[in-house]
Structures are given as structure tokens and as C-alpha cells.
């Protein structure tokens, strides 16, 4: 018999099979996490928060096998002191049960995956093959901008390029054979010919700021699930827009019979028992555009989520104001929530209005959100339409 101890690197040291399969598992975890992203992201007030990461608690993936359901009373063999009837482990108090729930089991280990929202959104864009948005190029929006271009020997003092100037001086000294460049004691002498000034050229450039106006119907008929869908859509629409513009500002408007402006944290909590008057929020949006986000200087996006039921007498008014909005913005999106999947006997009033507006060639899109999956479709539709419209 011999006991082998090999001197060279043994085959099993070359790589770790356990680590390889662990990495593969983690890859699958990330994929699984991505599948639940819409829900995760809609959970928190992430739209305007600066610190943009989400921590996702994940369990190990389980490779399932056929197993019997848990028995009411589980039996096993044990060993030690004890007579029939002896209690080996007291039952938990009712109160403890809460704290234990979910975390028990045989040494279950959980870990937290921290995901950057920007990463997630990048991934989504790749995955969904969404087009990149482009700022609209209308002349009125173009802001003249000065761009540095080249240098000149003459110019205003304030545009003196010191670094360039010094370089010229060094070069000149070298050419003149003045090789004894001193360190600090003797400053390099400058002559007028060494001076270099930055030149500015005037160039028109498209506006790079965007304003996104979210309008949400918070009347009694919008239930929790519908708002959640709206929130998810809003979130991803905003992320997509953020990818494109240097500066994005958000406005949150909620309405029932009246409209109010909120900040994000209150926006999705707001609710009202009043009726639904769409023109109220449309008018408020117009007002916001008029006072703060002039569509000639901002790329304005308008998204409106509602269950589609509007007061009958508001129809003309709503139509008029929405057309006004559609004429000024880059894009106006209407998201209709609710309804049992695809079972919709007729178009709602708002769906009809938006369809009409779209018919006139204005940049308007409508989507219907009944379930989580629709959010992706709506996002894809919005961004493709938007990109095609350019």
C-alpha cells in the first residue's frame, strides 16, 4: 500500500468545482431577482431619492425534488435520557412565532444583493432592446451655447490659457538654446508672443433639460393595485428619460375633482373620494408648464394614469386641455389601469379622447395596464413610439 502525496499541483487544485457551481447559482439568482424587479422597485420612493440602490434579500434557489408534504406530527429517532411523555424542547409561545416566521428551517441562509438602480435600468434597456431617446430638435428650443475651440495669440485676459502659455514659453526657450532651465529660483520669462487665449465659438445646441409631469387619478375608483401599476410605469418611464437628459425635473400632480401638486412621498398615498375631472389636472399641468417648465426650453413629458372614467360633462373640457398639452410636449402618454385583463367591453371616455388626439398626429400614446407584464409592454411601446416619432 502506498499513500500518494503528489509534488506537483494536483488536478483538483486547478479550479474549484464548488465555486464554479456557486457562481452559476448566483447568476441564476440575479436573473431571478431581475424578474421581480418591477415589484421591488415600486415598493419604495425611489424616483427622486438621491441614494439610488435597492437591497434585495434573496434566498438560495432551491432545486426541488419530490417530497412528501409535512406531516402534522413529525416523528424521528433520538437517543439519550428521557421517558415517554418527557418534553425535550418546549413549544414556542404564540408571540415568538412572529419573529421566527420565515427565518427558521434547517439553517437557512439568506443574503442581500445590493443593486444599483442605474445598473438595473441599463440592464433593462439592453434586455428589452429599448431605443435611446433623443432630445427633440426644434429650433425654438435650441439654446445657443459657447464652446471652446482652438487658441489665439490675442484675446480677453480672462480667457488666458496659462498652461498653454507656459508650454509656448518653454518651447521658445528650448529653441533659443536656453537649456539652463532653472527650477524655482528663476521664473521663466514670458513675452507677448507666448500668450495663448482660448477661443469661444457660438454653437446652437439642443436643450438638455427635461421635465416630466406625472398626473395620477386618485379618485375613489383607483384602487391600490391600479396605483401600484401606475407607479411602476412612472418609475421606469422616468428612469428611461433620465438616461438621456443631463437634468430631469419631476412634477407630481394628483387629481380627483380638483388637482394638487405633491412631492413624491405623498404622491402615491394621496387619495380622494371626489369624482373625476380630468380637465382639472390637465389645466394644472398647463399652468406648471407655463410658469416653470417652458416647453420651448425644456423637453417636457407628460404621463397621465387613470382608470379612464371621467365625469361626462367634463368631456369637451378635458379634450381641449389635453390637446393643448399634446401640442407642447415631447410626448404625452396615457396609461389606463384596471379592468379584468383584456375584458373591456368598450373604450372609456379618456381612452376615446386620447385615441382622437392621436388620430390628429400629435405625439400621444396610450397603453392599458392590467397586470405586471403590461408594464413592460407599455414601457417598450412608449419608448419605441417616442424614438420612431423623431
Amino acid at each position, binding site marked *: 500500500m502506498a499513500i*500518494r502525496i503528489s509534488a506537483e499541483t494536483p488536478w483538483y487544485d486547478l479550479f474549484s*468545482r464548488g465555486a464554479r457551481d456557486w457562481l452559476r447559482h448566483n447568476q441564476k439568482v440575479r436573473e431571478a431577482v431581475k424578474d421581480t424587479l418591477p415589484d421591488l422597485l415600486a415598493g419604495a420612493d425611489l424616483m427622486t431619492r438621491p441614494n439610488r440602490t435597492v437591497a434585495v434579500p434573496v434566498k438560495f434557489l432551491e432545486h426541488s425534488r419530490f417530497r412528501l408534504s*409535512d406531516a402534522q406530527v413529525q*416523528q424521528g429517532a433520538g437517543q439519550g435520557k*428521557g421517558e415517554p411523555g418527557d418534553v425535550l424542547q418546549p413549544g414556542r409561545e404564540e408571540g415568538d412565532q412572529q419573529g421566527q416566521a420565515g427565518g427558521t428551517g434547517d439553517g437557512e441562509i439568506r443574503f442581500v444583493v445590493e443593486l444599483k438602480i442605474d445598473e438595473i435600468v441599463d440592464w433593462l434597456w439592453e434586455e428589452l432592446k429599448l431605443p435611446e431617446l433623443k432630445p427633440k430638435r426644434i429650433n425654438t428650443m435650441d439654446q445657443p451655447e459657447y464652446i471652446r475651440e482652438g487658441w489665439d495669440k490675442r484675446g480677453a485676459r480672462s480667457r488666458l490659457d496659462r498652461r498653454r502659455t507656459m508650454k509656448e514659453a518653454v518651447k521658445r526657450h528650448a529653441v533659443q538654446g536656453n537649456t539652463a532651465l532653472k527650477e524655482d529660483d528663476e521664473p521663466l520669462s514670458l513675452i507677448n508672443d507666448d500668450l495663448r487665449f482660448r477661443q469661444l465659438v457660438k454653437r446652437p445646441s439642443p436643450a438638455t433639460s427635461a421635465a416630466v409631469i406625472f398626473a395620477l387619478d386618485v379618485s375613489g375608483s383607483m384602487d391600490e393595485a391600479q396605483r401600484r401599476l401606475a407607479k411602476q410605469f412612472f418609475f421606469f418611464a422616468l428612469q428611461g428619460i433620465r438616461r438621456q437628459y443631463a437634468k430631469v425635473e419631476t412634477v407630481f400632480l394628483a387629481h380627483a375633482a380638483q388637482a394638487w401638486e405633491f412631492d413624491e412621498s405623498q404622491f402615491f398615498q394621496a387619495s380622494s373620494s371626489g369624482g373625476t375631472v380630468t380637465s382639472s389636472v390637465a389645466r394644472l399641468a398647463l399652468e406648471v408648464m407655463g410658469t416653470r417648465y417652458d416647453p420651448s426650453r425644456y423637453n417636457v413629458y407628460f404621463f397621465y394614469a387613470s382608470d379612464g372614467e371621467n365625469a361626462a360633462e367634463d368631456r369637451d373640457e378635458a379634450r381641449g386641455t389635453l390637446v393643448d398639452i399634446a401640442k407642447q410636449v415631447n410626448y404625452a402618454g396615457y396609461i389606463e389601469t384596471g379592468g379584468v385583463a383584456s375584458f373591456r367591453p368598450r373604450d372609456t371616455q379618456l381612452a376615446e379622447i386620447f385615441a382622437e388626439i392621436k388620430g390628429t398626429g400629435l405625439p400621444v400614446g396610450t397603453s392599458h395596464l392590467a397586470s405586471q407584464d403590461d408594464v413592460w409592454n407599455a414601457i417598450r411601446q412608449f419608448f419605441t413610439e417616442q424614438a420612431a416619432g423623431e
Partner: protein
Amino acid sequence: MTDLELYATQIEELAKRLGMDYYPVDFELAPASLMTEIAVYGLPVRMPHWSFGVRYIHQLVRQSMGHSKIFEVMFPGDPCRAFLMDSNSDAENALVTAHVLGHADFSKNNQLFARFHSMAGANIVETAAAHAHRIQLAIEAHGVERVEQVLDAALALESHIAIDGELHRSRYPEFIEPKQAPLRSDFQQRFSQLPGVDAPAKPKAGQVRAPVPPHSEYDLLWFIANYAPDLEQWERDIFLMVRCESFYFYPVFACQIMNEGWASYWHARLLREADFLPQPLYLSAIKAHSDVVRPFASGQETALAINPYYLGFSIWERIVQKHGMDRARQVRTEEDDFGFIRNWLDEELAEESGLFVYEARPGDEIRVATKDIASIREAILAPKFNFGAPRVAAVELKHDGSLTLKHDHGNDGRGLDVTRAKRVLEYVNRVWRRPVKLVTVNDRDENVELAA
């Protein structure tokens, strides 16, 4: 020659003198990292699958908390392959060498091991490495997702082989054998000659196709490999490789108590008789022995599990003491854990060891339920029936290729865990590629049908 090699040689000479009978053993000192992987995969080189990654992390965590210490891993065959932990002390490794010889003796002679040996050849380590290599080639050819899909299904059904069946099995006969015409007795001949009696109608000509499967088929890996309507050759291959490894694991699983007990008996005996070992080394080795075979963690008085090393060791000591070594060797050859526990774990030993059956009720209260010997035996054996898996059979393959599985809940006592069963059906569906359904019962004993 290192000290360990010297001891190992001497221990082996002693083993031969004591009449141990085994194929040669190749020992290899291996680092902790490899030992951990072997504990996780069951084999030094095995097919890749993400589920092993999860077990790997669990094992690392257990080891870092000190709950799990690996001494040796031994693969039966001709030669046997044994891996010793290079960081263990010489005393521990001398003990382990003796222990491994016990396993080697067991696996050469036990009929379950011998049966696998004769069906699959004598070198599981290389067989499994070859499987891993073929799967690697499949990954290169078809991509990791597709191979993973097959492995998801095959490994989920890992325990669903017919444990008494053959490793190499041909397909079902395609046609029902025509029935032999009954022999005609004298009376029948005379009767048929009577006037006015018509000859019986001739059976229709032609062969009758046998239904698939002709009976409930519990060897699901084999059945899928052979009858899945759209399985490609390489996918079928994967199923059969997983099945082959399952056949290897079955004797290890079904003889664990006996096998560990036998090895512990022999390491104790060999050390006792090894007068060539230096005294301090002998003492540390015996200390390691008592750590291995002690029934509970130190400082505790009860355990809610039975240490198979302890239990097997005690039973073997008693058999040798009461019935002699020849009888013990016969038991080693003929039994598996079921026979071993039922025939040889007697009331006296159970009483001495303080074995009991406990019950855990909802709310986690745990009580000692009984000390009845029959109940103790069944409680020990319960997790071992049918390779530790519920009894699920393929019962029908319809003309459209859809498959029906049936859970034998009568035998198992209750229904399947529905969430998991559904996921397994999904795995199966992805390779079967036609509808798959499963019949089991819920907790009110009503039939439920799951589909994927």
C-alpha cells in the same frame, strides 16, 4: 517513508492477519478544499450543476462553524480510492486508514455493493469523471442553459430509479406475446368431436401492441431516457449518466449504518491490536475514535438524531460478542440497513443506548413518544425507504405523447408537497416537451392533479 506510510503498511498487515478481505486501496492525501468538494458532490469529479453550488456554500458555513469535520472519503471499487485530509494529525489519519480498510472489506463483500460493482464496473471515480467530461462537451456543443435544463430534471429525479432493477435494461417488449392455445385434454377432444358443436372462433390475426408502460414504472430516469418523445440523444445520455451514478449511490445510502458501524468496529479493533503504534499516537487515535462514535455532542444529554457510527458500531460489537466473527461476516454480506436494524437492533441494546422515538408537533414542542422497539426501528428506517424519495411512478403514456405520473400515496402515507412537486413537473416538462401531469392527494386525502 513517512510515519503515516509506515503505520498504514503495518495496519494493513494486521488487517490481513485478522482475515479482512478487500480490494487494494489507493490512498491519497488531499487538501481540505478537495475534501469539502467530495462531501458536496459525493464524488471527486462530478457533473456541474448550480444546486451543488448551494450545497457547497452550506458545507463551507457548517465547517466554519465547526459543525462538520471531514476525516475521510472512500470510494469502493477495484482498487478502492480513499482520500485522507492532509491537515489531520498522524493519529487521526492512522485511525482513518484503519477505518477505510473496514469500508473496503464491507464493500467487497456486501451483496448490494457487489451487485453494483458487477453492473457498473469497478471504478466509479473514473466513470463519474468521464460523465463530467461528456457533460462538459455537451455544454460546449449546446450551451449551458440547455444542458442545465436536462440536469435540472435528471438530478431532481436522481433517487427515482428502480433500486432492485438492473442498471442495463432493455426497452419494454413492443408487442403483447400471443397467448398459447390451452392444451387440449382428452375430454375436450372428445367433446369437440360431438356432432352439433361449432369450433370456437379463431382469434384475430396480427400482433397487439403492448401499452407503454406495461406496468407502473418507478425507474423514472430510465423511462424518460427511453420513452420521452422529443429527447435528443445527448439529453438521453445525460439521464442515463445520472441514473448510473444513482445506482452507485444506492448501496452507500442503504447500508450507511452497517457500513460506518463495520468500519468503526474495525478501526477500533485494529488500533487495539496495533502494538506497533507509539503510545501517545494510540491515545490520540482512540480519542478521535470516541469523538466519532459518541452519540451526542459534548455537554448534551439527548440528541434528536442517531449517530450512525455509534449505532452501527454498537450493533456490530454485540453481534461479534454474541455470535462470533463468522456470523458477523455473514451478516455483513447479506443484509442492508433494513435487515440489519430489524434483525439485530434488539430491545436490550436499545434500552442500554437510551434510544427513543420523539414527536414534534406544530409549535415545535418535542416529546419522547415511545421506547417501543418496533417503533424505534421503523423511525430509524423511515427516511431510508425507496432511496429516501416518495414513490412516484409513470403510469400512462398517451398517443399524443403526454405523460401521467402517479404518486403512490397509499404506501407513503400522505400526499406530496405540492409546490415542490409542481416545480419538478416543470423541470420534467421541459425535457419531455409534451404535457406532463401528476396525481397525488392533498392533506384531506382528496385526489389532486398537478400539470405542467
